[in-house]
């Protein structure tokens, strides 16, 4: 609490900190570090796809004994694909995104001094840190890291005879993920308790900013689904190390029959996707929450359809737990289940469409302040629409038969959850950087970063749909063994060039981030003229967030450009300016929006 200041040492302030703002920054920097690894890997394997027979000294430099004369080996290609997926989905977009912004914004936006449990919050970060370290260590294992795809389907992931990466590399992968899940669960429980119990006076659930609603619902999905992945991983560990047969049966490999009897890989697929699909929304919903806030603030307009936005987040969260089977239409499960999952999957398009339309309506007749954060939010809406629409193709079981596991799928999910979520994360960093570091990020570098990123994102993933429709399977080390795909090689080169430029384009962000941290313009208390509570705290971080009493809330978060005469757009602003802090009491006769 702010009343009794402890003497803080370097260790308690920067390392084992229990302050949510510091923990948020720790999550962000660790997530960025993992992100750099993940993106570099994607650049390496994109080079392999585009120029399969070409030797690269960079490959020779970084892949050690996993390459021959600068050409990577087929199993390290699969390892790169696997670790890229794992790192981006879990370490960057789950921990890096949700961990950063849930921690930073939940206490600040609901008016709390800190998280419900500062200690558990610290534990959550350090577990994440340990799991990151284990994952990075697994990259240096002699036989290579896990290489069975980020979905680690057994038997491939269970048998080192099937692929070298399924030895020590896979064990470390499972250990790392188990620790990661513990971290995520502790964090999520903390977020839920904090939102339910520590809201300041007047902060009703119906006055919460949409960011908080998004983090709250995300945490609930995480608590519901992550334990299932933990059990799936543990059972896989048992199969691998203790000879059980949960997932394995009737296997003949390397000249011998294995003892496994009666298990089924389909069971693993069910357990995996029971997390795996909600995971998509664990990644996406926080990004949508951040975007709602950034778009409304920068459009100087209330978010359109606040209640519909909450309703659709809840609907998406609920539906997300009953659609996992659409990843398994051709897994051999009963076709009747396929029908059910097609139905629930396509239903999810309705709340998603409501969200997209509401964003566009929020832009309509706004006064758009095109800051980098705003551009990234608009970019998110664009990629979310593009990627979401192709979901209608994939979610339809009859169509999925033909494009399942082709590049069409890769294009779809990268746009709808990868690019969209990362854009949401960038929007969040540009917008809340002053809250994190007390300085502002440079806008020119931000603009460069945005335009390079969105052009390259579309340059990579739009053509990729079409090579998928041409029948090209994903996770092929090279396509040269199939003359029928020869005419796709030029397109693959174009995609790789966009991917390399886009990857290097992220240097604009990294440079901007670190330079602004030390040399950026000092931030004012409320630089974006926003309504929410975090902008009523002092710029310099203090323990407990507010120096005196906690603020009291009198209205929702979106009273932008409210008029004296609500029917007349030309009338003056009700409070004399185009934003009204949530702490401002209602004027006499003013109706709550």
């Amino acid at each position, binding site marked *: 609490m702010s009343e009794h200041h402890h003497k803080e040492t370097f260790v308690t302030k920067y390392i084992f900190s229990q302050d949510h703002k510091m923990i948020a920054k720790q999550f962000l920097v660790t997530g960025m570090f993992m992100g750099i690894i993940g993106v570099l890997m994607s650049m390496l394997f994109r080079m392999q796809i585009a120029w399969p027979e070409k030797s690269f000294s960079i490959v020779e430099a970084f892949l050690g004994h996993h390459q021959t004369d600068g050409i990577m080996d087929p199993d390290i290609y699969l390892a790169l694909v696997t670790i890229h997926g794992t790192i981006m989905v879990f370490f960057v977009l789950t921990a890096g995104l949700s961990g950063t912004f849930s921690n930073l914004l939940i206490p600040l936006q609901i008016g709390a001094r800190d998280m419900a449990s500062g200690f558990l919050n610290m534990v959550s970060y350090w577990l994440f840190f340990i799991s990151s370290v284990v994952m990075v260590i697994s990259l240096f294992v002699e036989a290579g890291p896990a290489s069975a795809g980020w979905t680690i389907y057994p038997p491939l992931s269970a048998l080192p005879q099937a692929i070298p990466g399924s030895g020590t590399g896979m064990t470390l992968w499972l250990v790392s993920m188990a620790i990661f899940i513990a971290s995520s669960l502790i964090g999520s429980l903390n977020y839920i308790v904090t939102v339910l119990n520590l809201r300041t006076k007047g902060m009703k659930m119906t006055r919460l900013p949409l960011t908080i609603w998004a983090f709250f619902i995300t945490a609930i999905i995480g608590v519901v689904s992550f334990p299932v992945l933990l059990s799936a991983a543990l059972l896989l560990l048992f199969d691998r190390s203790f000879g059980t047969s949960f997932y394995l049966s009737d296997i003949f490999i390397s000249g011998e029959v294995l003892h496994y009897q009666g298990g089924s890989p389909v069971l693993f697929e069910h357990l995996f996707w029971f997390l795996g699909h909600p995971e998509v929304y664990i990644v996406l919903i926080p990004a949508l929450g951040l975007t709602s806030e950034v778009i409304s603030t920068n459009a100087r307009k209330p978010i359109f359809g606040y209640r519909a936005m909450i309703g659709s987040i809840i609907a998406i969260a609920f539906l997300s737990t009953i659609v996992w089977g659409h990843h398994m239409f051709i897994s051999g499960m009963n076709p009747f289940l396929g029908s059910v999952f097609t139905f629930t999957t396509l239903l999810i398009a309705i709340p998603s469409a409501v969200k997209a339309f509401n964003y566009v309506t929020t832009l309509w007749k706004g006064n758009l302040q095109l800051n980098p954060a705003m551009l990234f939010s608009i970019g998110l809406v664009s990629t979310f629409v593009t990627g979401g629409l192709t979901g209608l193709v994939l979610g339809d079981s009859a169509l999925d038969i033909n494009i399942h596991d082709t590049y069409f799928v890769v294009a779809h999910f990268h746009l709808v959850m990868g690019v969209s979520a990362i854009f949401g994360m960038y929007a969040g960093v540009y917008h809340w950087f002053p809250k994190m570091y007390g300085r*502002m990020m440079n806008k020119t570098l931000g603009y460069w970063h945005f335009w390079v990123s969105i052009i390259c994102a579309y340059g990579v993933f739009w053509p990729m749909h079409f090579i998928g429709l041409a029948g090209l399977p994903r996770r092929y080390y090279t396509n040269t063994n199939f003359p029928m795909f020869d005419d796709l090689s030029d397109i693959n080169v174009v995609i790789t060039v966009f991917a390399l430029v886009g990857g290097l384009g992220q240097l604009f962000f990294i440079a901007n981030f670190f330079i602004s941290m030390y040399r950026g313009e000092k931030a004012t208390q409320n630089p974006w003229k926003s309504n929410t509570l975090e902008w009523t705290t002092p710029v310099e971080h203090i323990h407990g967030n507010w120096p005196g009493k906690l603020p009291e809330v009198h209205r929702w978060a979106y009273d932008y450009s409210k008029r004296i005469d609500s029917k007349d757009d030309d009338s003056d602003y009700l409070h004399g300016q185009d934003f009204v802090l949530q702490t401002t009491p209602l004027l006499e006769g003013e109706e709550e929006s």
Partner: protein
Amino acid sequence: MLALFYIFIAVAIAVSFWQITRIMDLRSVIADDKDNAKQGKNAIYFMVFLYAMMVYCLIFMNVIMLPESASIEGEHDDNLFSITFWLIGIVQFIMQFLIFYFTFKYRGEKTRKAKFYSDSHKLEAIWTISPAVVLVVLIGYGLWQWNNVMDLSDNKDALVIEVYSQQFRWDARYAGEDNTLGLGNVNYIKGINTMGVDMSDKNSQDDKQVTELYLPKGRKIHFKFRSQDVLHSAYMPHFRAQMNCVPGMVTEFGFTPKYTTEEMRLKPEVVDKTAGINKIRRAKGEDPYIFDFLLLCNKICGASHYNMQMKITVVEPDDYDKWIAEQPTLSSVIK
């Protein structure tokens, strides 16, 4: 050592960049009217780029796509796909226009006042109900087609073929005269009995093991899939067919070939695609490509996943009868 060299270069670049920023002006941080105007225009330029790319891909990538379905069941797949694709294409063009046009049109200006517009139940009802109605159509057609493909119950005279996968090859077993496959299990794998067929089962005796698929045109094929080691996926893109091969269980799929390989090679879209491919192959000095149906592995299965294929040849029923008669039965091969 080479890695250290690259890392050294990266550090050197970072340090020099850091030094350069000393003299840079980092004071511009919040968008003003000039920025809004410029970025609004950029949004329009980007929209032009996006539309150009979308249209270019839609028109010029037709030639690289899979030709029309070579199975009768796949026709509806193509139909459903066209309907869905047109639909999402139209929505995509409209939505992207609105997003980037609004960004330009309502770019911030000192004199502009945003409209306070927080809710409209009418609008929200419209965009809840209209996607719902469209989805009913798509779901209805989709489920009908799904049942169409997956239901193999009422096809007594379908030709039964087992497709068998292992790292990293495909084999196939025809059910023979009785059209019933003998049992199989990995415990029976020995010597030339590579598919683990139970030779004590009387249904196994007339089964025929082959390394390439021959299918008669116009007859329903009932595929049964088995795997010996890890998950594989039998993907036959030209027939719009795919099914995972799962160790420990038998999965199924069925379709009726509609064109023979010869007929398929004469289709204009196939001729165009083949010509395009051969132009590329000639430039690289490789042998010309001739169209064939293929079965590919489409589930990550190990290092040589990228090279796991089997040729499928569709022939007239008479030719098929001749071909199958020439194949030896298992009982004559495995003693």
